[in-house]
């Protein structure tokens, strides 16, 4: 093929080559930005350093009078209160109470919600009728109903479980229903072409297909269940970390507030880790 020396190729006007080359060389030479990753130990040391630094700064600020230690408390006081809390107070009763409300609410809400979501597969009409109610229930700030729940279920464990359940149920229902809706109709066609009954399609196709959706909300739900339990304890309770925080706040025992928050956070992290572990185990069992 002959090299064309015209400046028009396929209708595209080209600038004279020398000018284009000159323009290109005028562009700044820019290198690909490279970010160097720190080794893990450096990251961990930095993280610990920030934490220790923040606590130290808090202590210094309280002692130097930069902040009012009455309102903000100080790390040394919190540490003293912590050892008192565990040696003399109802620490384990409170932790156990909050833990139980959370776990019961989590299990009840997640199980019921998943089953509820799966049930929509059985009838499109039923799903269409019920759906607006669920959306409504989802948009209600359910914690606003907490005083009513306390009135109905009393100030014991059951009211906390009820609030935790209400929070988790809707999330599980909607997520599972999303799974049901994502089901490929051709998959159902395959099962029916093999002569399957509806129950067989449900057990062998719908449930395994939706399991990843059901599992994916476990971590969200454990956090929600804890929130529900704490709010229930705030409103009316005789036990629990939420009650401990409220009581400490009302008696201006700010160090105790911090202690209870610290213990609560630890509980939250432990439960979150446990649920994450369960989730990864389940995921291994359910290939997707």
């Amino acid at each position: 093929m002959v090299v064309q020396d015209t400046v028009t190729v396929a209708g595209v006007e080209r600038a004279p080559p020398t000018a284009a080359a000159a323009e290109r060389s005028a562009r700044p030479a820019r290198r690909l930005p490279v970010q160097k990753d720190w080794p893990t130990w450096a990251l961990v040391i930095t993280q610990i350093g920030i934490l220790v630094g923040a606590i130290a700064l808090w202590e210094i600020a309280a002692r130097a009078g930069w902040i009012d230690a009455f309102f903000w408390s100080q790390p040394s006081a919190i540490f003293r209160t912590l050892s008192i809390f565990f040696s003399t107070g109802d620490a384990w009763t409170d932790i156990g109470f909050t833990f139980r409300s959370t776990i019961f609410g989590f299990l009840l809400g997640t199980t019921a919600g998943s089953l509820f979501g799966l049930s929509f597969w059985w009838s499109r009409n039923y799903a269409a009728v019920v759906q607006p109610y669920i959306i409504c229930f989802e948009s209600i700030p359910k914690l606003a109903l907490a005083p009513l729940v306390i009135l109905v279920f009393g100030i014991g464990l059951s009211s906390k479980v009820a609030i935790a359940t209400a929070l988790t149920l809707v999330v599980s229902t909607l997520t599972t229903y999303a799974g049901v809706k994502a089901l490929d109709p051709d998959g159902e066609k395959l099962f029916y072409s093999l002569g399957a009954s509806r129950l067989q399609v449900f057990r062998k196709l719908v449930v395994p297909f939706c399991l990843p959706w059901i599992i994916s909300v476990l971590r969200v739900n454990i956090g929600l269940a804890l929130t529900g339990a704490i709010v229930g304890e705030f409103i009316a309770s005789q036990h629990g970390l939420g009650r401990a925080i409220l009581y400490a706040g009302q008696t201006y025992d700010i160090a105790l507030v911090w202690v209870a928050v610290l213990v609560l956070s630890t509980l939250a992290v432990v439960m979150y880790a446990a649920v994450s572990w369960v989730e990864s185990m389940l995921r291994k069992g359910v290939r997707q």
Partner: protein
Amino acid sequence: MPAPKLHVDNVSMAFATPGGAFQALAPITLSIATGRFVSLIGPSGCGKSTIFNIIAGLLEPTGGRVLIDGVDATGTIGRVGYMLQKDLLLPWRTVLDNAILGMEIQGVPLRHARERALPLLQRYGLSGFEYLYPNSLSGGMRQRAALLRTLLFDTDLILLDEPFGALDAQTKLQMQEWLMQLWGDFGKTVLFVTHDVEEAIYLSDEVHVMATRPGRIIETIPVSLPRPRLRTAALGPEFLAIKERCLKLLNVNPAAAEAMNQAA
């Protein structure tokens, strides 16, 4: 004369649409003798999949009957093996457990079903893949697993809806050979849908050419090439004559189609 394996008797299908009834299928009559390999070819939207859904009992026709072995099977499911365009392998089951799905649904004990399926998977090119999950299989392997699932469902008649449509050209040829081997070994009656004229002629005893609006069969062309067929048969005069006839019926310019084949 024995009843044909499949007899589609004046089956028609109309769908209600806002603009009035839409005639998807004009009354279609089609008879397939036992053990034959028959293809349907036609443009998109000519109702090939609709016919399949009706034969498989997944769709109730607005008119006509489907007879299998001379018995009315209209609207009953589980009578034929049906392989849809997608392989639809269940990702949470191993290849072996996917293959036994049909038997499992029919209530065959799992152990027994696995014992039956295992040697077949090994003989038909899935050796070493039995306990893997479908996501680690190539497209061709997935189609093999899906086809074996259809065969293991143990019906005499199987419907294959463009099983090789999504495969690359090379794999497609291999799969055609593989399908011929299976067909020879199992002696099933096959109804095959494809867009690929050459594939239809190469595989079939009979090619039905369809047209659209409404979907109908416009011509039935017997393919009497001797079996086993060689790839070079596609260059012979009889093959080419049938191909030309099909392309003409499908309103495709042969030269343009050839050019498209080359490009692809």
